[in-house]
């Protein structure tokens, strides 16, 4: 995808963005910066699958916040504050996204220029929580160490009895410096780091990275490789969606279903191993194509996909047929359509709230949008509708896998890569990962080295929605609510 660079002066940025988002099919991709001296705003237009990159030079460290008019910008602006030291004045909740322990003092890890003054300019990190007043209110702190193998994140629940009044989420306990690291290593090796940005969506990350690189240097990917990429993406989707449904059954306390789904998830991982040699689809997709050709194993893959879709029927039907499941999930964790739009939700969470947005329908990656399955959209916005979307996508993806396997062409699986990337270009990869729209945005300097590698994980958009959805629900329903969003901690904490 070609991307145009549009300079937007600081004074107009907010208005432009509001105007842009006013149109139904236009979206905000991400807001970031290159080195702290400017704002980079990626905006997407789904109607013609185009993207614009708005470049807004900043003359000081402080600019007028976009959040009051564009709520979905709030987490981007918080990240800008921490990572670059750019402060959004008028931001309603400018708190740190990084913990003090992972980022000492006033160090801004991604800031690399001096023209905006001293980086040590006194931005204190703010780790406070909203104080809910009221005589009977108490706080439940959960995390960062959870019971069970879960990534670190802190949830602060302000409760009145069994009702959650307000939930605040704090991530950033394990900041790994992925974005920074990607600019430091040779670009040929970058794919290994890129796919580890959020490892449970390794295939999606790898495709996004590959597309971003390919779009910079005009590499055409062989058709067979496109098929294999699509297969990898869909196998990952099926596998992770089944995993999420299984996790949901664990949280609902339904051990029979959990055991069944866990077995089926194992089978889908076996499918992944057949396809790529790795149960987690690691080291498979690379810029230019894919690294291995599964050849004869595709037949076995097809057989297994049929077995999985056959064996899935019983548990999925049982799941949605169960009245207690309905009790636990209907009207729990509701996100209205308008809130979903204002918060710019993506993926299952968006489609569960009635927003028909699936990057597979619009942006080219793998065989999409040509082969994109029908979109599953539910309007209720509660846990159940997210579950329904998820299970519909499992079925759709399994169908897609069979179609792709039936039509797969033979030929080479990778094409030559140039020695170096072109200078001063922008590459963007937009992929529908199983959690939703994933964006990798690469800027090169004049020598062709990567000067900024920007990753927007789907969870980046959706974490706020969890906080809002949990409010007003029962404390005991929070795990179910949380699981229905199935968010990535590491994807946000790059």
């Amino acid at each position, binding site marked *: 995808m070609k991307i145009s660079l549009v300079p937007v002066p600081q004074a107009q940025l907010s208005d432009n963005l509001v105007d842009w988002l006013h149109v139904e099919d236009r979206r905000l991709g991400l807001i970031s910066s290159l080195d702290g001296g400017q704002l980079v705003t990626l905006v997407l237009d789904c109607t013609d699958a185009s993207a614009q990159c708005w470049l807004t030079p900043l003359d000081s460290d402080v600019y007028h916040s976009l*959040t*009051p008019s564009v*709520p979905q910008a*709030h987490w981007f602006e918080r990240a800008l504050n921490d990572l670059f030291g750019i402060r959004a004045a008028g931001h*309603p*909740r400018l708190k740190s996204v990084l913990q003090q322990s992972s980022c000492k003092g006033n160090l801004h890890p991604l800031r690399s220029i001096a023209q905006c003054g001293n980086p040590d300019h006194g931005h204190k990190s703010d780790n406070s929580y*909203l104080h*809910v*007043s*009221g*005589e*009977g*209110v*108490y*706080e*439940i*702190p*959960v*995390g*960062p*160490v*959870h019971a069970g193998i879960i990534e670190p994140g*802190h949830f602060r629940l*302000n*409760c*009145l*009895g*069994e*009702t959650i*009044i*307000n939930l605040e989420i704090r991530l950033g306990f394990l900041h790994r410096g992925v974005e920074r690291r990607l600019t430091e290593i040779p670009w040929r090796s970058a794919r290994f780091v890129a796919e580890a940005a959020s490892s449970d969506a390794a295939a999606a990350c790898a495709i996004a990275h590959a597309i971003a690189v390919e779009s910079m240097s005009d590499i055409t990917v062989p058709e067979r490789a496109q098929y294999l990429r699509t297969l990898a993406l869909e196998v990952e989707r099926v596998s992770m969606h089944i995993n999420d449904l299984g996790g949901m059954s664990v949280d609902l306390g339904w051990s029979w279903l959990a055991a069944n789904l866990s077995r089926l998830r194992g089978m889908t991982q076996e499918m992944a191993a057949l396809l790529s040699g790795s149960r987690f689809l690691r080291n498979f997709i690379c810029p230019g194509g894919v690294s291995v050709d599964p050849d004869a194993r595709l037949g076995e893959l097809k057989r297994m996909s049929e077995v999985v879709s056959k064996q899935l029927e019983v548990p999925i039907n049982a799941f949605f047929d169960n009245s207690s499941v309905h009790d636990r999930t209907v009207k729990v964790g509701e996100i209205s359509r308008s*809130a979903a739009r*204002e*918060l710019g939700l993506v993926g299952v969470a968006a489609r569960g709230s009635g927003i028909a947005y699936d990057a597979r329908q619009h942006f080219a990656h793998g065989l999409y949008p040509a082969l994109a399955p029908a979109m599953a959209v539910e309007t209720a916005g509660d846990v159940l509708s997210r579950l329904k979307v998820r299970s519909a996508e499992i079925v759709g993806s399994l169908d897609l896998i069979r179609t792709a396997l039936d039509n797969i062409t033979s030929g080479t699986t990778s094409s030559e890569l140039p020695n170096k990337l072109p200078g001063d270009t922008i590459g963007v990869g937009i992929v529908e990962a199983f959690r939703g729209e994933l964006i990798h945005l690469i800027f090169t300097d004049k020598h062709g080295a990567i000067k900024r590698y920007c990753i927007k994980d789907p969870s980046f958009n959706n974490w*706020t929605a969890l906080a*809002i959805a949990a409010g007003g629900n029962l404390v005991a329903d929070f795990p179910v609510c949380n699981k229905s969003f199935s968010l990535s901690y590491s994807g946000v904490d790059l």
Partner: protein
Amino acid sequence: MNTCIDLLRAALVLGLSGCGLAVVYGHRFSQTFFSVILLSGSVALFFTALSGWNVDFIWQASLPIYFGVAPLLIRLDRLAALFLGLLGAVTFCAAIFSPGYLKHLEQRLNFSLYWFSLFTFVTSMALVVLAANALTFLVFWETMSLSSAALVAADHTSSAARRSALIYLGATRLATAALAGGFLWFHAHTGSWNFADWHLATAATVIPSILILIGLSIKAGVWPFHIWLPYAHPSAPTPVSALMSGVMIKIALYAIIRLFLFHGETLPAFGITLLTIGLISAFWGVLFALVQHDLKRLLAYHSVENVGIIVIGIGLALYGQSQHLPAVACLGITAALFHCVNHGLFKSLLFFGAGAIDASAHTRDLSHLGGLAKAMPVTMLCFVTGSAAICALPPLNGFASKWLIYQGLFTLACQTHSRLGAGLSCAAVGVLALVGGLAVACFTKAIGVSFLGRPRSHEAEQCSEAAPAMLVAQAILAATCVVLGALAPAFASLLTPLSAAATGSLATGNLITLPLLPLAIILSGGACLIYLFVLGPLRQTPPRVCRTWECGFGQLSPRMQVTATSFAHPIARIFKPVLLYKTVSEISGAHQRHFPERIKADAVMTSLLESKVYLPLIAAVRRLGRQTTRLQAGSIHLYLLYMLIAAVALLIIGAAT
């Protein structure tokens, strides 16, 4: 006989001299001085009761001491002795407790008035118990009411206390009115003022019996007349709260027992009514107690619950009498009497605990307490004992009396031929179990939020243990609760002659057949052994002390522990229709939709009776009053017109008859 009279005389003299001294030297003498007088008076009272256990003595005052139409008549029998003993015991502990407690109220009390009222209060309570005719009863009843109202308002700096005193006074007015009406009717009916000549709750005396019952119920705090109780008890200084809750409301119950139970045949409807009202009281009281966060108010609502339990016992006895089931009647009356004593003991103990917290932390609000276990271990031990007793946990005294109630209900269900009685008693067993569960929830909340966890406020952090004398008062009561629990079978058989006198049956021997003492020994012995050999000092590695698990986040703040409201919230939600309970949250600030600046959440509870019955009633009376003032327009001609109309009307009526 003579010792008994001498002791009683001594007690009365001490009481009256206390009054006199308080008026004259109230400001000059120390609190300890008055406390010692009160102490000696209470000892005399207690031993009067002890020595009076086996005598039945009547004393009529000679002519000058005469209430208009009837003499001052005093009778000390076993029933009166029981309640005198309770009064003596609680007053004894209150006297020990007082000096230390009153220290923190020095700025706020008028001690002259306080001690005068207190001596009057205690003396009049003793005389109400001893009263053998209606006028004596009414005179001292009034003295008791007025002096206690003065005590409720003793803290003159607090407007809440004044308001409470007003509400209380209003309630006592109604009570006295109803009582007076009933007494007059009975006098007209029987021509005698002596209680011994009256037969209540028979078919011929339904209306006056109801009047008397209402009058006494208002004072006892029975549902639906309990409204004044949660206002008055918390406002009074703690020794007074203990006396009011522990003894005064028992005296109203004593009057019910004396007037209704010792005269043979009664109407079954009275028994059924009392049983039902008792059940409602018990449920209502404990439910409202659960959602309180003022410690003393919580205890006050528990008094409503316990009064309900006692009334169940009385109702059971009445119904048993009416159905000729002496076993049931005997169980009921023993249970009622036993529970009166028990409640007097553990409720005053709990009030003392609350007072000790109040004196030390200067707040009774549970949301400001917490973590007192470290600072006030002895107070906590006593409070836990009292709570366990009020929750009727075996082998404490509360269990013994509640067991008697259960046995009574169960026996009724087994023996009665009336389907209504059987059904009602089974329902009562269920409701009592529910009440028991609620009481456990309520007291674990009270203890957990005030004593356990971490301090929620600076005051709670600065707390120190109560004065030794205050601890002694609590320890005596706590020990009594334990001993009375373990020796319950013996105590119950002491009460048996009383119930036998009421039911007319022969003494049935041991009512409580449970081996409570061995059980207590086994339980505590087993606990000690396990502690010594498994957990305690014999282990090689001492336990490692660390922070409470905080999920690796860091220090836990005082906010991160459950509040009283939140603890009770799930239960309150279930009983939402009764409590009119709802959660209100208010979100405000710049970007309300997604980024509010302020969130405020509260659980709101309205008293159904107050909001739906009493306030509209009061409003109606007010409106009526306002309508009546229209008649008084100020015009002399109008008044003349009224007189004319009245004269004509009278003439017509006179002519017609």
